């Protein structure tokens, strides 16, 4: 089994006129690669009617609903994260409740609020109560503010993870931009922080470094917006690791941290 823990889809109220083709392309590539499950989120309107990383409550509700419908359309392939904006706490909490009731299996936090901000605590408390992991968008080593997002790095996410030791956090896309070496140092001693391997970055040494930093038990395979690089990393790991270790990264760890029955 192969689980992509970091997938995205589009819908009709985004700025992508080719949203159907992009969704179809992900699913088709997934078939070639052998992806059993796309665990996906939709970040509101992807910037069409509110900013991608600061999505409005209205856009998030619509996006989460579209993802739920997609997962119903592809019951054996797509699972969903509930995407929320912690600045709208009440809405975030109700979306998480509603999402969990309708079969969503995780919470997605993008970059609407710094990861160590207290506003994230009620969101994480809800995730803990419902047994959902939290996928958090990360800028690997944020040296400054970046436009368009209130990005967080691994140090900031780890502060949140310390406050919520019974929640499993997925640190997004170590290949997704920024200095992953900084991240690998930061996460070593935080057992409830998992690394997803997604992102367009395919730096030589990155995968070996990730294994050395957290072991195969805290790595999760994913692709994000470049399935080609995801597949490349999977192929590289196939040569690097024993089959049992690879199986943990491909699906075993995901099965362990997502709700029971999420992938059956």
């Amino acid at each position: 089994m192969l689980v992509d823990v970091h997938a995205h889809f589009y819908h009709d109220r985004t700025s992508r006129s080719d949203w159907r083709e992009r969704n179809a392309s992900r699913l088709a590539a997934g078939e070639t690669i052998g992806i059993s499950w796309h665990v996906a989120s939709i970040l509101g309107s992807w910037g069409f009617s509110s900013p991608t990383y600061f999505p409005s409550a209205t856009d998030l509700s619509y996006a989460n609903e579209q993802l739920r419908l997609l997962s119903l359309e592809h019951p054996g392939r797509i699972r969903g994260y509930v995407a929320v904006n912690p600045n709208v706490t009440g809405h975030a909490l109700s979306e998480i409740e509603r999402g969990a009731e309708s079969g969503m299996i995780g919470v997605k936090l993008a970059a609407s609020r710094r990861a160590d901000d207290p506003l994230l605590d009620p969101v994480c408390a809800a995730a803990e109560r419902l047994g959902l992991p939290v996928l958090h968008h990360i800028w690997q080593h944020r040296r400054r503010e970046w436009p368009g997002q209130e990005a967080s790095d691994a140090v900031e996410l780890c502060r949140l993870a310390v406050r919520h030791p019974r929640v499993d956090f997925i640190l997004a896309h170590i290949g997704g931009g920024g200095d992953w070496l900084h991240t690998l140092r930061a996460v070593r001693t935080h057992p409830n922080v998992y690394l997803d391997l997604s992102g367009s970055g395919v730096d030589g040494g990155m995968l070996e470094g990730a294994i050395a930093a957290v072991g195969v038990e805290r790595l999760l395979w994913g692709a994000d917006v470049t399935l080609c690089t995801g597949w490349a990393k999977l192929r590289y790991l196939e040569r690097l690791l024993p089959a049992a270790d690879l199986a943990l990264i491909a699906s075993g760890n995901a099965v362990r941290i997502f709700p029971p029955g999420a992938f059956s």
Partner: protein
Amino acid sequence: MIDVNVFFGSYPWRRVPGTSPEAVLAAMDRVGITTAWVSHLPSLFWKDPAEGNGWLYETAAKSPRFKAVAAMHPGLPHWEDDLREAVDRGAVAVRADPGFLGLAPAGGEMLRLVSAAAAAGIPLVSAVRLEDGRGRHPLDAAPELPPSAVRAWLRQDARARIVVTHADRGFIEEVHFGSTPAEASRVWWDVSWVWGPPDDHLELLLATMGATRFLFGSGQPLRIPETPAARLELLDLAPADRESIVTGNAQQLSIRSTTPA
């Protein structure tokens, strides 16, 4: 399968595994790459990058699977001698990365190199970048190659043949559609930085520009060589197009051009 974007040697900004010729050969075998166009990575950052060419020629000569890409610095005295040596010693191409050399990318030195390489019938290789700009060392501030420079190089000499590595879709389109068809027919792009699905940038570029413009390139060992192979496998490519990209176009480029100006 010919990988036109391969390096030997250490990288100044972080530890990279597998940089020896032996390790590169093992990685090539793993992916099914038969031939590599190799550059000496440390010398890209040296004051005189041509000082690495001697070792590169000797190392490449030890295996028929390696083809040397010799480094040039057209801002140094007598750089023309380095170009002549590259031709004499059978280099498959020469390279200059103006950002790392501290040269204006479309300035007089680079334009003179473009003309001289064109006259010698040897392709000129240049990288847009070596690493994602968001993850570079704080002191690694060399500017990326701009598309305008490649357009200027193509306009400099009608014989010039340019290979650009590590370019993304936007860069490629800006040069291709910002050039005459004749100019655009003299630049080749490796696929190391062009995204596959779901955005399908590579599929789009192949549809709009044709397979003749693209080369298999990885950027290994700075980047894992499995990437371009996976990228191509995710395409529904006609066998002839695939052959062009992975082998044929690079083979054509490696033939010394003798077309008069």
